[in-house]
């Protein structure tokens, strides 16, 4: 039954994707994209990948739409008419599609326990997680301990992406020039969203922190938490205006979060080395190696959360500052 649902949702996904490609109104495309994201999250959920689904939810529900719409406000929402013949792209895509379909013939059945991917390191992870760090969520264990180097790399990718966006959008340094927003942006005369939003923000922040600190037990972790908390602040910025949000959470704090998060992650690794272990081998952090692992995971997840939250908010503010400029 579950597979029928998954198949059904995948069909809807394809229909939505085709519609996104075919529409020339970019605003409509953004709206369809958010439907696409919802479908994607439901699909991940049905396939039992709750961590990924939560990531999709945290990023897709708020941040993506907001950033897409900011970009549309800068760029206009009608697609440029396309030039030249469509035959070449159509042919390329067609050949690729045939190749991919051909490749799937070799794919093992969905959920087949004998598939090669389940024979390699996965059983070892499943077996060793309770022994090494004693936490229920193996995804978090793999992400932050077994494959800690990968996650460190990802955090630095987020860091680099944030710096890249800030360079491209050319935010001025916070100085006297930036202090003159002619008129406050945000919603005016909109009592209902403002009052309800104000009520929601603390709960969103708390939920983000809950996701942050329960990564070991349920779906969640630093990436999702960072995105959720960023969404809470973005909600506040939408309701009360840019300037007000920057007053509540200043830009220096945001940049501090990005840099501090990345450094915190790296510092944990260095501390591990100083205490006589390998880089990012948390076992040496405490007398009891299992507890050391748990501490290490909590600290680096906090680093990830800080970096993601700071990066998303910096990007959001960069877009908004650009928008306010003539």
């Amino acid at each position, binding site marked *: 039954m579950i597979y029928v649902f998954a198949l059904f949702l995948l069909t809807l996904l394809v229909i939505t994707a085709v519609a996104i490609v075919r529409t020339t109104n970019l605003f409509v495309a953004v709206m369809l994209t958010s439907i696409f994201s919802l479908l994607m999250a439901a699909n991940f959920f049905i396939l039992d990948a709750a961590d990924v689904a939560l990531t999709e939810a945290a990023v897709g529900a708020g941040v993506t739409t907001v950033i897409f719409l900011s970009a549309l406000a800068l760029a206009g929402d009608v697609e440029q008419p396309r030039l030249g013949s469509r035959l070449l792209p159509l042919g390329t895509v067609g050949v690729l599609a045939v190749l991919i379909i051909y490749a799937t013939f070799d794919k093992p059945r969905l959920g087949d326990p004998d598939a090669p991917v389940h024979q390699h390191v996965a059983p070892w992870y499943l077996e060793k997680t309770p022994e090494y760090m004693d936490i229920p969520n193996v995804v978090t264990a793999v992400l932050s301990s077994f494959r800690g180097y990968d996650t460190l790399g990802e955090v630095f990718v987020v860091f680099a992406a944030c710096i890249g966006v800030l360079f491209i959008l050319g935010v001025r340094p916070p100085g006297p020039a930036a202090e003159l927003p002619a008129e406050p942006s945000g919603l005016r005369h*909109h009592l209902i969203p403002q009052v*309800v939003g104000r009520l929601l923000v603390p709960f969103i922040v708390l939920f983000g922190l809950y996701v942050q600190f329960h990564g070991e037990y349920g779906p969640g972790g630093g990436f999702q938490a960072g995105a959720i908390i960023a969404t809470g602040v973005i909600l506040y910025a939408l309701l009360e205006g840019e300037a007000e949000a920057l007053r509540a959470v200043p830009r220096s704090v945001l940049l501090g979060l990005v840099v501090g998060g990345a450094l915190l992650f790296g510092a944990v690794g260095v501390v591990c080395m100083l205490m006589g272990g390998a880089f990012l081998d948390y076992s040496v952090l405490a007398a009891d190696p299992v507890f050391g692992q748990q501490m290490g995971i909590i600290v680096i997840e906090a680093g990830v959360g800080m970096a993601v939250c700071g990066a998303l908010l910096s990007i959001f503010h960069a877009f908004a500052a650009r928008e306010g400029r003539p």
Partner: protein
Amino acid sequence: MIDVVLDVISWVLLALGGACVLIGGIGGLRLPNFYTRIHAASLTDTMATLLIFTGMMLQSGFSLPTMKLFAIMLFLLLTGPTATYALANAALLSGMKPDSGVERDRGASGGVQ
């Protein structure tokens, strides 16, 4: 005995909720214009949410998931009308005229007043 009664009640609630969801979806397609379609959406937003979540809360008894379900229901009932208001207000501000029946018949839709 009490279990059976609770079971029956929750099944009835769930079935009614499913029906509400469906009717709302059908209304979203059948009703003639944007402002009337909002009403269909609000049918699924509120009544279906209430029924389905109450049904599930009865099923799971007094436990932690119940509390989570209650929180979800509360937040949905709080954000649902807010989102609807935001949307309706955006449409109104952008100059989309609601067709207002007899009082302002014709001319109201599409024309300048």
